């Protein structure tokens, strides 16, 4: 099922994938490195590195707050991409997907953007507001550079599911429910029927995101899909540690983080 080129062969398994999302620079670039390393320790298979944006249309309040903190700390698309070699220097080995809204990419320019990704050893890119119909040029450039262009598919994608799934690269991001990112209490039955339909057409791992916020969700989703994408829940844990970081109790905050992530993933 796993294609040989998936993340240039760096993805070593095809099920129970744990794909965490953090916002670069939230609350500082140094701490993003620390949190990323701890996520790897806890078994993360791919890191989604979010680029903060002033107008994040697909995101709920938690990620909006993270974006605001990161922007206040001076983060940008170029800086986020340049953080990747820093992450590697500190020991991050798992593939990194840059998650960015389209407007910052447009300002850097398509060609320069992919040059930057290649130069800095980024394995994948995800642009949530660039649907299939608008992404042809970007998909072509990604292919030329062997960078995985990650697609999203939603419960109401209907006849588009086949087209999106068949063209998917890296992994396919299944939006579990209509709405923006954020923690939710329940996962709906329809979500699982939808995941089944997506898997029928996909040759890459199918990972589910939006609303996954506890171990029960993780366990349940892994029965139906190849992995989980977790963003808001992780950001809440980072957020909860900000006070300790500010009080100079940084190690404690990092330890708390590791514990919370372990609970989330391993129960």
């Amino acid at each position: 099922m796993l294609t040989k080129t998936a993340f240039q062969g760096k993805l070593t398994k095809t099920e129970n994938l744990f794909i965490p999302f953090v916002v670069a620079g939230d609350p500082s670039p140094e701490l993003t490195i620390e949190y990323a390393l701890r996520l790897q320790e806890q078994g993360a298979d791919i890191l989604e590195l979010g680029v903060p944006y002033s107008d994040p249309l697909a995101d709920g309040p938690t990620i909006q707050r993270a974006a605001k903190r990161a922007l206040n700390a001076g983060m940008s698309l170029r800086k986020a991409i340049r953080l990747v070699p820093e992450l590697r220097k500190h020991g991050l080995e798992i593939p990194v997907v840059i998650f960015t809204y389209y407007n910052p990419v447009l300002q850097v320019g398509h060609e320069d953007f992919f040059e930057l990704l290649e130069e800095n050893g980024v394995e994948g890119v995800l642009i949530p507001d660039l649907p299939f119909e608008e992404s042809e040029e970007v998909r072509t450039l990604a292919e030329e550079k062997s960078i995985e262009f990650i697609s999203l598919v939603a419960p109401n994608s209907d006849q588009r599911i086949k087209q999106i799934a068949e063209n998917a690269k890296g992994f396919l991001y299944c939006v579990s429910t209509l709405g923006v990112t954020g923690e939710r209490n329940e996962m709906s039955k329809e979500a699982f029927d939808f995941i089944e339909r997506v898997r029928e057409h996909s040759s890459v791992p199918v990972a589910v995101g939006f609303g996954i916020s506890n171990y029960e969700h993780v366990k349940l989703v892994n029965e139906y899909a190849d992995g989980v994408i977790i963003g808001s829940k992780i950001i809440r844990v980072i957020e909860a540690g900000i006070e300790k970081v500010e009080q100079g109790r940084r190690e404690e905050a990092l330890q708390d983080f590791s514990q919370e992530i372990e609970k989330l993933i391993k129960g």
Partner: protein
Amino acid sequence: MLQVFPDVRGRFGDFGGKYVPETLMGPLQELEDALDEAMNDEAFLDEYHHVLQEYAGRPTALTYGDKITKELGGAKIYLKREDLNHTGAHKLNNAIGQALLAKRMGKKKIIAETGAGQHGVASATVAAKFGLECKVFMGEEDIRRQELNVFRMKLLGAEVISVSSGNGTLKDATNEAIRYWVANCEDHFYLIGSVVGPHPYPRMVRNFQRVIGDESREQFQAVEPVLPDRIYACVGGGSNAMGMFYPFLEDDVELVGVEAAGKGTDTPEHAATLTKGTPGVIHGSLTYLMQDENGQITEPYSISAGLDYPGIGPEHAHLFKSKRVRYEAITDQEALDALKLLTETEGIIPAIETAHALAQAFKEAGSMSEAQTILINVSGRGDKDMATLMDHFKEEVDHAH
């Protein structure tokens, strides 16, 4: 020719499109299918025009401004009176069209974004009229500034949702309305107030506003032998201007869109998107916008809340780039001066938004010949702006009387 825009991908030349999360692609297609079907159904169009006539009070008048013409001593000045439309501005034309479409699609709940509150009031009005449930998203800063319109919406039965994300203004209210729509698209209709947003919104709103230009054309030809030499309209998102310009795009008429220069386009405090902005994506559309070098969208400024928007409709971006429409920018002060002049000469108190179009027209009228004609779209009335106007003019007015 120009009129084939947008193309099947929702493009006006280089601009437009659908830059939205995957979850909205389905609802946008559903909307486009329903819209195409409705616009080809004579019964739907008849109902829309019937409501415009017997509820909104259309056609609005075309007024010859004899005193202002004499005062400026140049081209003859005509005013298209959208200020006489029900609820006080052109906004209702579009709200009626979209509410009828929502009903036709079986959606009983509408959501809308608003800055100054004019589109919010228009949406709340059609919701009351057609028995729809209405939520209006409004930035917390705008709620504070526009107390009267907030009350009007509530009185009309709408729920006003305060948006605190970002800076709490129109841009953020629009983001929040889109987010809400993403989560509730199955039974909610998003009633956008301008020619912005993803395809098919810019086309739909233009087509529900073109009644302004269509009427103007007919009314003008009844009193003048030829079409106007120049037409002026103010531009925030750009719906009154698109509605006015669209029926004249293929004629030999000079079209002038007027943006808000705020405290001056050489200061950071303005909303002159085409004059000073650069291409990018905002609210699902590729257009011009105000942004920093990293592609983060910046906050605009204008005395007029209706022009205080960092983007502009994609069709305007195209008309700007193709040079079919000339775009100018007018400062707060110039707009206020023009507002006062029209009020004193014609007994019409226009909205501050409209005053931007007036100011540009007044600048140019004097240097045109008496044989030439000007048409200005008076997009709304100034009632909503009384608090702002009192701040600026009270001393001067009280002193004079």
